[in-house]
């Protein structure tokens, strides 16, 4: 039994079930990220934990106490909202201590808690301003401060960074990560940005259509996706998925793809998945960083496949250059070093790190292991 237990929880609006039997146990100090596309039910689940939405069936318990039907303010949770939800009429200080005030904490104690948290987040000089006078990043910090000051059992974050611009988002991400490492609190965090999910979490629940598709550590999710949805949702640029035909010979195996010249190429696999049969139609998945030029290829890889193919688009990204080519009629993105010598329209030798290859059944979209 975990610190926060989500036990077989279902949510329906009227006749529509928007969450289907969700089952997650969160340990104390864990950083669980719920990630998934818009409308998949992340916020709904988070709101149910917070007590802002009723639970249709199942149980949620915090520290072993079933909290179904308990008022949000009695659950000892704190929440940071996407829009920050700062009270526009109160100063930053008042915003942060409002919750304590509502819980009848005496002024002296409130002030102390406020001072501590303000120091921690380096927002001491902002305490007398109104939210309207703050920048996006500052608001975000205040919203976190408001949660921290309560010292709750569980922190809930609903896309707290999605209103920030790219640069600030990266900085705040690191800050949240540090905070978690420092305070060791239990966090449930919603985002639809998979990079955030990967960098922040200790565990990720990838959701889609009201189902938890996969629950695991970031590395499991990234390297070992259960199905096509998880594979393509996580990672940016996302995993290349191309139609291929399996070749199985004894213990060895490979996949056959069509190059840009229309000729078939067989790419060897490091081992033969048990579920693979010869001639089977598969989806061959490989991440962009596993498709490189010769120089950039991983020196420790067991199996590297080489393939000359036509280059279509080059997008220099500073640190890396993204190269688009075509396999089996589908765009494939390769991530290369910024010094790469390939040019659009030319043929170029690609190196594929087949250790990282994954195969899916095109029908069920499930992984072939």
């Amino acid at each position, binding site marked *: 039994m975990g610190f926060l237990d989500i036990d077989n929880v279902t949510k329906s609006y009227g006749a529509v079930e928007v969450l289907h039997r969700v089952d997650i146990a969160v340990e104390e100090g864990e950083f669980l990220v719920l990630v998934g596309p818009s409308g998949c039910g992340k916020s709904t689940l988070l709101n149910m934990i917070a007590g802002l939405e009723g639970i249709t069936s199942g149980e949620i318990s915090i520290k072993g106490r079933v909290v179904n039907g308990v008022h949000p303010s009695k659950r000892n949770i704190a929440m940071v909202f996407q*829009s920050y939800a700062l009270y526009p009429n109160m100063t930053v200080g008042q915003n942060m201590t*409002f919750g304590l005030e509502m819980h009848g904490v005496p002024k002296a104690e409130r002030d102390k808690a406020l001072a501590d948290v303000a120091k921690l987040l380096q927002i001491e000089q902002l305490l007398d301003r109104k939210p309207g006078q703050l920048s996006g990043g500052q608001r975000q910090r205040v919203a976190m401060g408001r949660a921290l000051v309560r010292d709750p059992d569980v922190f809930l974050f609903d896309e707290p960074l999605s209103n920030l611009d790219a640069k600030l988002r990266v900085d705040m991400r690191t800050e949240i990560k540090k905070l978690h490492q420092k305070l060791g609190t239990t966090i449930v965090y919603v985002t639809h940005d998979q990079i955030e999910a990967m960098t922040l979490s200790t565990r990720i629940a990838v959701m889609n259509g009201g189902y938890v598709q996969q629950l695991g550590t970031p590395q499991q999710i990234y390297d070992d996706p259960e199905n096509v949805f998880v594979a393509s949702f996580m990672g940016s640029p996302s995993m290349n998925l191309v139609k291929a035909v399996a070749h199985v010979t004894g213990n060895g195996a490979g996949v056959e793809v069509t190059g840009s010249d229309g000729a078939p190429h067989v790419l060897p696999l490091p081992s033969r998945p048990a579920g693979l049969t010869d001639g089977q139609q598969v989806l061959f998945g490989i991440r962009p960083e596993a498709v490189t030029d010769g120089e950039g290829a991983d020196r420790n890889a067991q199996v590297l496949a080489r393939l000359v193919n036509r280059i279509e688009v080059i997008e220099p990204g500073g640190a890396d250059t993204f190269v688009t080519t075509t396999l089996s009629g589908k765009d494939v993105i390769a991530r290369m070093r910024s010094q790469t010598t390939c040019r659009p329209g030319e043929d170029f030798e690609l190196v594929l790190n087949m250790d990282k290859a994954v195969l899916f059944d095109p029908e069920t979209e499930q992984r072939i292991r």
Partner: protein
Amino acid sequence: MAVAEQDTAVRTGRITRTFIYLLLLLFALFYLLPFFVMLSNSLKPLDEITGGNMMSLPREWTIEPWLAAWSTAQIGVEPTGLKPYFLNSILMVVPAVAISTILGALNGYVLTKWRFKGDNLLFGLMLFACFIPFQIVLIPMARMLGLMGLAGSTPGLVLVHVVYGIGFTTLYFRNYYAAFPTELVRAAMIDGAGFFRIFWRILLPVSGPIAVVSVIWQFTNIWNDFLFGASFADLDSMPMTVALNNLVNSSTGVKEYNVHFAGAILAALPTLLVYIVAGRYFVRGLMAGSVKG
């Protein structure tokens, strides 16, 4: 080379602009004319009115009519002027506006932030109530007031105005609060604030613009109401408009038009004041709340 700068997204030429200014001024004239007629005639002696041109400026200026209208004109058997009724009106308007605005705000709050099954239907019922012609409620309302023991009293009038005002105030606040982020309410709930505390501490402080609209609307309507005032008031609760009507509308007596006009302007002063003082926020409030239809 520099070109003439304009921040407007829409550009207009010089000729067009001149035309626009002219038109706007022309309309200003149109709106001001009746007021001019009232004002200039209120400053004339009576014979200059009955015998002369009503559109012209006074030949002989006098403030007598104003003094008379305020303190000596005959309203009933006593030559009290409008003065005492002013207070009656204030005593009626202030609570009626306050109560209907607060109820409207609470209703809007419930209807947007604490939604429940059938809330839209309830709102529809309230909204339709705005459109009832007042003449038809006169008799049944009198009966109800009598039964409640409020007939002929200021509280009775306040009740009547509240009843027929909440439809509009609810509409205003509902539309305004609909745009107010629900997340704030949720945050306050998690912070441990209850229904009223959330309203009081979170929503009310930011309701300024729409409160202005609601107050202006209600104040104007209630202050200017005659029908209810005449039907449901006693002498000691009789509002300004009824007194003004008594001043202006005597049937077989002598008509002192200059006093009538002075009284009319006097009676309208509070509403004019409200428009001029709060008018600045009026468009802003409308923008924030009531135009999303």
